[in-house]
């Protein structure tokens, strides 16, 4: 109950900040940046795999968001989902325009040094393999998988963020899992 109340209060706070930012209040937008920068960074890092480009793209996301904030409609999708959508477009442009290749080999650092090293290596390997497979999915399937499994958005928010029905998102997710399975089976076969 308490958790629900604080979540509602935070949402109201975000709505107010968006209202102010839309009216040109830079400080309000700064607060929105503070609240969301970690999630945006994490999303981009998962897809890019290096700190320099992730930092660059994270900055671009917030610049774009500021430029476009008057067109943001809170009834359409949550603010974070909107930021993630901008991040997705920038990552797609990043790979497309600069002919970058997906960095499939990096592992995502876990700073927990207390874990068993062998176990840690196995977990890292499994996660890196899964990430590499996800990065081979078509852009839309990739986005749905990341928004549901990594970002934990509900289907309704993913649907509104991508301009599709929830039914369509379910179909995309089903297809994505089938394709992932195919990719992982192939990888296993090659090893």
């Amino acid at each position, binding site marked *: 109950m308490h958790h629900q109340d604080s979540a509602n209060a935070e949402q109201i706070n975000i709505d107010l900040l968006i209202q102010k930012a839309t009216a*040109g209040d*830079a400080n309000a*937008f*700064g607060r929105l*940046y*503070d609240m969301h*920068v*970690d999630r945006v*960074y*994490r999303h981009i890092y*998962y897809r890019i795999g290096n700190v320099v480009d992730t*930092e660059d793209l*994270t*900055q671009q996301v917030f*610049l*774009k968001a*500021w*430029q*476009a904030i008057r*067109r*943001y*409609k809170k*009834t*359409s*999708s949550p603010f974070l989902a*909107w930021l993630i*959508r*901008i991040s997705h*477009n920038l990552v797609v442009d990043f790979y*497309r325009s600069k002919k970058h290749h997906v960095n499939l080999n990096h592992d*995502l650092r*876990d*700073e927990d040094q207390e874990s068993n090293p062998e176990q840690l290596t196995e977990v890292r390997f499994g*996660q890196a393999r*899964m*990430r590499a497979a*996800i990065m081979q999915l078509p852009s839309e399937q990739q986005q749905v*998988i990341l928004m549901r*499994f*990594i970002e*934990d958005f509900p289907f*309704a928010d993913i*649907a*509104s963020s*991508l*301009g*599709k*029905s*929830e*039914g*369509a998102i*379910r*179909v995309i*997710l*089903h*297809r994505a*899992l089938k394709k*992932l*399975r195919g990719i*992982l089976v192939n990888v296993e076969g090659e090893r």
Partner: protein
Amino acid sequence: MKKLADILIECIEEIRSGRSNIAACIDRYPAWRRKLEPLLEIAVGIQEPPDVSPSHEFKLRARANLMEHIHSTELSRKPWPFELTARAKQIAWAGRSKLAAVALAIIATVCGLGGGFAYAAQDSLPGDNLYPVKISTEEFRRVFTVGDVAEAELELTFANRRLEEIAAMTKTEPDAISMAVNGYQRNVTAGIERAEEIKNPAQSANLFESVAMVTLQHLKILDSLHDVSSENSQSSIEQAHEIAFSTHVRALRDLAMENPLRAAEINLLTIDSRLDRARATAEQNETEKAELALIQFEELIRLGEDLSQISKRLGHDTTDVDELNARATAAHMEVLGLIYGKAPEQTKEVVENAMEASAEAHGQAVEGLQEKGAIDNIPQEPPIPDDIPEEVKERILTPGSEDSGGKSGESGNGSGGSGQGSSNSGNGSSGSGNGQN
């Protein structure tokens, strides 16, 4: 009967929330075990990455950069400091960037370069010295265009220009072409956004229809350009194609809120164009192009289902929309059968998916017509061509089954077919408003 996609999602959600596990889910749906189990294992294997966080130093630096950028552009957001007439206010509201563009156009004129200079610039292309003048004259026209209807129409005119530029550069200027594609995106996005801001329903419906028809034409033009463009230009053309397609879908969803039947009619035109494209490219063994056209076909078929649901929610009589969809999906099946016969092995799955979507849409439309006793002479099941293998037919007519190896024991409804066409309706959200550049 539930579709596999729905069962899968239901199980995933329960497992993720800790309310169930893979074994319990499979016990509940034993008929789906073979298909469900591996997909659930994959889903469970996708885990959040370790807590990767930006450095404190980066966050401060990025925030400072952001604030500096905002303050440097802050003036453009502030209201005009003295009283203006209504028209002048509209012009002022357009912002400093527009005024800067006007200034540039005026400077060009005052500097003796005159109208001829601006005129000559109209044929320039991205990368040319005169191109900024062309863009400035467009800004100039924007400033003196008042009202959402006129502004939306103007943006569509400019989008056509960008497409002409793309067409002129497909073989020669692969680098500059992306500039035209970015401009195209800005113009069509601004066009649909202006249309969405119109309060008068009749006017907005007209504009949504215009956007839908214009982008349909653009899709066809971009298909042709894709066929003749140099290898280096292909990704830019594909990007422009994606932009045209998503704007088209958005316009149809918007239009459906005012006139669902017209939205359904235009959607069928676009579906036909995607099918034509798939057939033509499959005949030439252009596998990737055929697959792209079929994927778009499938998305539009599902959009057709959504349009019917939107119509229903708005309290309209959906008979006309359902009849249109039912007749069209029956016709589509024949064409898809032809494509299936010509498609290489790796493309067949995409054709099967398109057939499955078509069969589901047919089922939903027939269901709607049956409810109203208006089924007339429409076949209950879509006519799948005889030369399609039996196991594929079974898969197509059994919503949710996913591969040609599907055994009847798993679904238990071998010929159930169209009657089960569950709606995939979702919420039919308009999908507008993700307004990034």
